[in-house]
């Protein structure tokens, strides 16, 4: 059932930029450390300390799936993920070109496209990320915690404003 499936959530502001997610991803999938083989990548703006984990969003209406000329890309609804069938893939890289997140990669060593497969339901990036800059949660619950955080920010701002008014 789609509603029960978990989804990867990126909490970008938490990321410490350590890139352990990249390493464990490559080791899990290919038995090697090589960020080029990783399905997740930390984009960095080092001069301001900004780090953003970039990974496949497993889109409902996935552009990679739509653009694939040989229908090698499909949705696996059991795990709510988008998967590549390598027996069908012809390596044309149309999916790489069209992905709005840059999350479809081309591995130049094996000459094939690679993307996140959620480690079949046990994403290693999440397992190893202590601070949970990437997390794996029920899809239905993603916005709930964000809503509460935003509500808290709004009310504390309001409280401050009231206090300031009272002081005046």
């Amino acid at each position, binding site marked *: 059932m789609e509603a029960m499936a978990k989804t990867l959530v990126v909490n970008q502001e938490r990321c410490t930029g350590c890139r*352990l997610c990249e390493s464990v991803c490559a080791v899990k999938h290919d038995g090697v450390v090589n960020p080029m083989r990783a399905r997740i990548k930390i984009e960095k703006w080092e*001069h301001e300390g900004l780090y953003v984990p970039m990974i496949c969003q497993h889109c409902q209406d996935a552009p990679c799936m739509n653009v694939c000329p040989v229908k090698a890309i499909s949705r696996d609804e059991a795990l709510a993920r988008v998967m590549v069938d390598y027996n069908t893939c012809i390596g044309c890289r149309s999916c790489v070109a069209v992905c709005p997140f840059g999350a479809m990669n081309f591995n130049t060593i094996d000459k094939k496209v690679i993307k996140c497969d959620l480690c079949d339901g046990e994403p290693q990036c999440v397992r*190893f990320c202590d*601070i949970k800059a990437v997390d794996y949660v029920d899809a239905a619950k993603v916005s709930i915690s964000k809503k509460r955080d935003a509500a808290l920010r709004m009310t504390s701002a309001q409280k401050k404003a009231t206090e300031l008014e009272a002081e005046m």
Partner: protein
Amino acid sequence: MALNRKVAIINLTTGQIESKPIPIDVRKKFLGGRGMNAYLLYNYLKPGVDPLGPDNVLVIGIGMLAATMASATSRTDVMGKSPLTDMIGSTNMGGFFAAELALAGYHHLVFLGKAEKPSYLWVHNGEIEIRDAASVWGKSVTDTQWTIRKEMGDEDIKFAVCGPAGENLVRYANVMTGIKNSAGRTGMGAVMGSKNLKCVAARGTLDIKIAHPTQALEYNKRFIDLITSAKVNQTMGTLGTPFIWGATNSWGGCRTNNFQYNQLRYADDIEPEHLDEISKETCGEYNMTACFNCQVHCRAKYKIPQSPLAEKFGLVGKYDEGPEYTSQGGFCCEVGCTDAATLLCANHLVDQYGVDNLEIGSMIAWAMELYDYGILTSKDTDGVDLRFGNGEAVLEMIHRICQKKTWLGQALAEGPIRAAQKIGRDSEKYLIHVKGMSNLHSDERATPGLALNIAVSSRGSDHLRSRPAIDLYHLPKDVMKRIYSSPVPFEGELSSDHRSYEGKAWQVFWQENCFMGVDCMGICKYHTTFLGATLPNFEDWARVVNYNTGLELTPTEIWTAAERCNMLEKLVNIREGFKRDDPHKGDVLADRYHNEPAKRGAPDVIGATIDREKFKGMRAEFYKHKGCDENGIPTPETIKRLGLENEPSHLL
């Protein structure tokens, strides 16, 4: 496999570059990182050369576990003959350079000669090229990196770079990477500058094959859980290393006003909790950043807040990372400053110039004490009011030293011994140094074990070579025994009392091998028996090495290799004139440790000095553990036992 990475010999004079594999038997003897660097240095360096001349040798090496499935293998070690001490120069940094160099195909780079013009080294997937550095010569540490990235159109290039201080041959200039990661001791940045080598730029996408991927992955998870469940690392992950300064200062272990006191008073503004507030106010709630593959994330981000001082020096809003406790040392207690503005501004300046915060802070603090006693006057300082606590003077002196401006700026840029010779007037007796390198800000008068550590450290006064920091935890004897009797047995007595002289020599000897081991692996010291008594060491490394590289090493073999590599460092020093009691080249403490009692702090600190005779006793014991004679020279049997009888053996 992970160990197929090569060593490159780069002759900057001729432009000739030679790449060689590292045979497994050489690996087993010298492991990698700092140990292998010591082997390369001992083999390539000729004794007695000018450290800032073309004959010096610079070795940049990364740990044998760099970019493997092992936690925090981010460390790069840089070695050469030190322009500061004229003995072994060796310094270590975290960040992301080590992993990138491994991915680019290399573990060690040996630089010979001197480039004709400013140059940098480009290392990419097994290829090495010497390139023109005209566009970045003179640029700050960070601007150099951002410029080359922009030129190459690749944001993932990583660097080992020298800043303007290195170009200007300040004798304690850093090699750096990223915003603030510094190989910051013994002046290896000045050696880069002297060779016209602005930086090494690395980028790699070569596979590092893990020998047993599933086991490596699972063991790494266990390893990380062990690290992050330790309270000390949790605190480190929220407050960073400033928490160490906070704890040490309240106890009375931070040298203040150079060495007049041992505690900085009224220092709330620079306590770790306040620095954390500044960091969070300027960079958000999640304010910590990490080195490669490390879950401790001990580095804070900050932007310099508005203040009259920051405004005056044009530094408001500048982004930086840290400050580490060593900056609290160099720019707060040592110079008697209690304000965050001085600390954060000074930390930023040294990061941009690429200069050792400890050494420059110590030099300024020493000059301040001389000024306090009237040995230096305002005529000597060209108008700078060098009184303790004057933050503006600290920032001004950092500029002058790094740009080598004014008589005093030039003198202090030369490091302790040369500066004292230049200033004269009996100024040397106020220096706090060992082997010509200033001590960090810690005061070891109340801790004989820690005092022995700084005295016998191969690279001069330093805590990162053999400090038995857990001596301060008063662990039960049986716990001490368990830690310090593995992987080799120790039958002697150990004391849980940090004031005692008993057993400390063994603890220092054990830590010396532990720290060499971790430096060979390329793992951060916060991941071993340094601040946390329960953290991994030899036994765990043996497993990590095996799972990742396939190499079979026993914990005892790693211990012996560490002993061997430490001895090689000692052999370099012996070749460069080590004499046990030489005040400039010996295993001795500054006289003030013996003569001036500590004035402040907890009851166990007040009045403490290091007893000269007992110190000599500890040192003699330490030499015995190392297999040296009473003069600190290894016996022929020890050389044979460690398999060093044929050095230099020129196998690489």
